[in-house]
């Protein structure tokens, strides 16, 4: 009987330790980020939205899911927005795939909002993708 108690005690202790350690390694999830709220320049202000863009784009880069549009990475959107704000410009000039300025430009608030939405979406989409990718695999969840 004593042996049984010892086994129960040891098992409980092991489970408790495992449970605690699991709690410690919990990684943040990004499924619930709301890009519309976080990236709204009119309500949050341009500086705050830019900070959100920087914060989440850094993580997106680490995860290998940074967005890129027409040759311009989201990091470039952020950097060019910062330069334009510092220089007091109203427009952000878009870059080509070689990093050279093109003839196209967008307003600073538009560029910052886009950079923020790209940064947040990259992470929410990554989290969503982990749950949905099997739906496209023939022989798995994809039915035809």
């Amino acid at each position, binding site marked *: 009987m004593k042996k049984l108690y010892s086994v129960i005690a040891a098992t409980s202790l092991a489970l408790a330790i495992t449970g605690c350690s699991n709690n410690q390694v919990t990684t943040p999830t990004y499924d619930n980020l709301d890009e519309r709220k976080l990236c709204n320049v009119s309500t949050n202000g341009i500086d705050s939205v830019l900070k959100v863009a920087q914060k989440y784009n850094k993580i997106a880069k680490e995860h290998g899911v940074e967005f890129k549009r027409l040759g311009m990475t989201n990091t470039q959107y952020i950097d060019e927005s910062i330069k334009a704000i510092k220089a007091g410009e109203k427009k952000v000039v878009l870059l080509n795939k070689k990093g050279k300025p093109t003839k196209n430009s967008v307003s600073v608030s538009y560029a910052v909002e886009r950079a923020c939405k790209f940064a947040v979406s990259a992470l929410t989409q990554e989290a969503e993708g982990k749950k949905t990718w099997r739906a*496209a*695999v023939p022989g798995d969840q994809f039915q035809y």
Partner: protein
Amino acid sequence: MLLNVVKSTVLVALASCIMNANDFNVQAEKDRIALIDYTIAKFEDGDKNRDKFFPYSTDDELKNNIQKNVKYEDLRKGNYAFNKQGQYSYNEINEMPPYDELVEKGEELYEDNKALQKCFPDVTVAGDYPYFDEEKKEVVSLTGAINKCLTDAGQKAWNEKKGKMAFFQSYIASETKDAEKKVNIQINSAEAAAAYERGKEFYYTQRGYLKLSCATCHVQGAGKRVRNESLSQLAGHTTHFPVFRLKWGKDKVENGLGTLERRMAGCVKDQGQVPPKTNSKEMKELLYFMAYMSNGMNVDGPDVRK
């Protein structure tokens, strides 16, 4: 008696090990067969199966462009397996392939380089890459193996997308094709199976600001038209690389030939994401998965694409 028990135990253990070794590719084999079945069913009769596979295609497209009864052995040709209108120009171009002189350059590179001759005594190996290095526990691509060979010999690594790398790979592909060898990708361990699974997840995951997966275009979308292009199918994708793309070679013929990594980086960019680096773990595992999907097909490179 005891000896018999020991002998039996050893035999059972050995048999179990051998069975397990053969088991690592079970999932990959299921995936490959399911993909082939889907692709063959899709191109059996596009017009007849319109509701299932081509709901938005026009009558003209289904009657005059999508070939019926596409065979497994034709899948290695990419979209020219079913794209009737494309086949005409493809056959015309291949009467005098623009990559021929580049294959010869690849052969010269090999003949002038003792390190390459030592690393690749047999050049009919295009179908064996990428492979999983069981000691280093990582996928080795043909591009990575060539550059490692060069740098180990104190030489400068080549550009991983075009130029000498593509020329030499085209020579390897051409020799492999002439030797009538097939794609032969192995999964012999749990780690290799895990690498394959990660590559598969990358392929089927929606990404970029356009929220497209590779499969959106090349599994579910295969055969459908984007602008004036018929989207090619995943099964057979890796068999014909490096490819000479008319788009890449429009300014300079030498730039026309590109490696599989060059093409995949372009595809990920088209999805709206910064692509993984050409020699990154993600890229190599993606290629490993893709190559497995072409297992058993004849190596058919180099080839021409738009």
